[in-house]
């Protein structure tokens, strides 16, 4: 297939993500079908062989991430993905891969926003975090996908793209040229067999085991990981703050839902309510300092998320009680469970923000 990567064309998010990953040099993908992730797998299956890469239709999510793990350990840019449920099965490997310091990209085409904790806290064992980027549009997904491969290699760390049904299945006009994020360290840790018999052969493992030594140094190993995560915390916070300078009410929302919040914000501004929007793009590391700054001078912070209240904990932990925080989101999904619920409605969001601003109670649930 001959595709111009610099011309804008109408693409569904699934295709745009696969094209962006290939532009970033991804040459291995493995996945197991699950809506709304399925089309991402289909697009990789269609395109990777043309690029000299491999796409495996894995027999389970556990095998999908295992295969990507092996490919990434050779230094190749590799990715896998699924939907929240499938991601649950991958958590054990995600924990080990983080500790083995293997760069890998994982696409979560989630069903709504109920997987915020899964994405940001991780469901695996051990003391770890992985980078999570949440695009709000197909165009941003293209950019963040390429950034994800860069950050994975930069930090030797897994990066999760938190998308959803709308990102995967909405067509937008986008281009997918290769984006240059700068140089990266050599992958001298990756296995290729070439150091066999030299006494310096490599060991890619999740416990800090060194070749030719007895036992491990657990304290040093965990400290290194903790130090690296501290550095990521400092360096990789990403966010968008819109009209926050004069805001009295600050809405915090991420992903697709933030686009609806943006529309609601414009309506409320027209009514004379000074609303600002803060959108975390990196869910971990959570853009804490920027949120504190955006909330300065606000009388209230309203957290909009499509779940029973998960990101609100990060908002509260960032603000530490300096500004009152109220939830204006709620459980909202469609009959098929894909997270395309009634909350995806800018009028409804505007109404809730108006209530929160006026100090009226905001219902927790949303009837679809």
């Amino acid at each position, binding site marked *: 297939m001959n595709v111009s990567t610099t011309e804008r064309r109408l693409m569904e998010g699934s295709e745009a993500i696969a094209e962006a990953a290939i532009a970033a040099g991804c*040459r291995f993908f493995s996945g197991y079908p699950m809506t709304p992730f399925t089309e991402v797998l289909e697009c990789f299956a269609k395109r990777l062989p043309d690029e000299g890469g*491999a796409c*495996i239709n894995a027999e389970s999510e556990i095998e999908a991430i295992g295969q990507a793990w092996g490919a990434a350990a050779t230094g190749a840019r590799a990715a896998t993905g699924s939907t929240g449920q499938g991601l649950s099965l991958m958590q054990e490997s995600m924990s080990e891969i983080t500790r083995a310091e293997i760069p890998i990209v994982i696409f979560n085409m989630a069903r709504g926003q109920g997987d915020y904790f899964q994405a940001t806290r991780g469901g695996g064992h051990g003391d770890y975090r992985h980078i999570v980027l949440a695009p709000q549009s197909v165009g941003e997904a293209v950019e963040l996908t390429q950034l994800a491969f860069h950050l994975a290699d930069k930090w030797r760390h897994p990066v999760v793209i938190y998308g959803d049904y709308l990102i995967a299945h909405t067509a937008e006009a986008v281009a997918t040229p290769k984006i240059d994020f700068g140089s990266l360290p050599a992958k001298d840790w990756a296995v290729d*067999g070439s150091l*066999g018999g030299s006494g310096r052969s490599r*060991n890619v493992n999740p416990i800090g085991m060194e070749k030719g030594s007895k036992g491990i140094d657990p304290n040093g190993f965990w400290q290194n990981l903790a130090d690296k995560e501290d550095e990521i915390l400092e360096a990789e916070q990403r966010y968008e703050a819109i009209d926050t300078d004069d805001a009295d009410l600050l809405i915090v929302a991420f992903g697709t839902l933030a686009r609806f919040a943006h529309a609601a914000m414009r309506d409320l501004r027209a009514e004379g309510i000074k609303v600002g929007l803060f959108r975390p793009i990196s869910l971990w590391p959570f853009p804490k300092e920027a949120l504190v700054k955006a909330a300065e001078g606000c009388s209230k912070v309203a957290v909009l998320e499509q779940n029973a209240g998960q990101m609100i904990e990060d908002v509260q932990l960032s603000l530490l009680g300096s500004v009152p925080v109220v939830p204006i989101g709620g459980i909202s999904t469609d009959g098929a469970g894909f997270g395309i619920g009634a909350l995806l409605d800018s009028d409804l969001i505007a109404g809730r923000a108006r209530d929160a601003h006026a100090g009226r109670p905001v219902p927790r649930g949303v009837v679809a």
Partner: protein
Amino acid sequence: MTDPNDPLRVIPTDAPPVGACRQTGTSLPPLTLMGEHDLCPGCGEPLALRQILDAIDEMGMSQRAIGTIGIGCYTALTSLMDIDLIQALHGRAPSVATGAKRMLPENLVFTLQGDGDMVNEGLQEVIHTAARGENVTCILLNNGVFGETGGHMTATTVLGQRTKNSIEGRDAGEHGYPILIGDLLARLQGTAYCARASVHDAKGVHRTRRFLDRAFESQMKGQGFSFVEILTMCPTGWFLPTAEGPDYLDQELGAVHEVGELKKDGVLIEA
């Protein structure tokens, strides 16, 4: 590593040794790193490991081999193997090997797993990898118990075998039957080579080596999935005196998991 030009040290025999005897000299295979390990006395795994490393070295694949290994006792093996390794999770090595081989098809990619790892936790992985005809070699070191956790029953434990959780011996009514994994994998179309060997005696060790050579050659010819099961001693996990390990292996495990080649060049070998 020890200098091969050093003269062999002579151990004095006119007085009893002051400490426990330790082998000295240059008997290590070329791909073995010097160092301590945590394996138990009487363990059969070092015998199997040595055959694997020798086979790789003599094939001239020392600088093109990648091993993916499981956990448990295998963590202790990693520090001794002077080849590039990826440590996978319990059961997941065949998938990890798949990813590595797809990216580096010219390399010799193999897994090294125990029976708890491969046949309990990772049964699905090894079956799918074989069925896919994935061009990797899976090596199973089968001792019929979870060694590192202290001698518990696995899916290959034979009927009557005493383990920590089959204390009166494995009973089919209560615990079901052992899985003869080699026989199962041999029947899959994607499997090109399949064999079972044992390291309980010198003849078995030589046969192990021969089967490994054939499996690795099969992979490098691109024939598809290859599999070598090696029966190994675990006197610690069997609660036996070290010296009784080899005979127990031969008579108990060996009687059920019969040694021999099961498939060659994609053709089943009928018993």
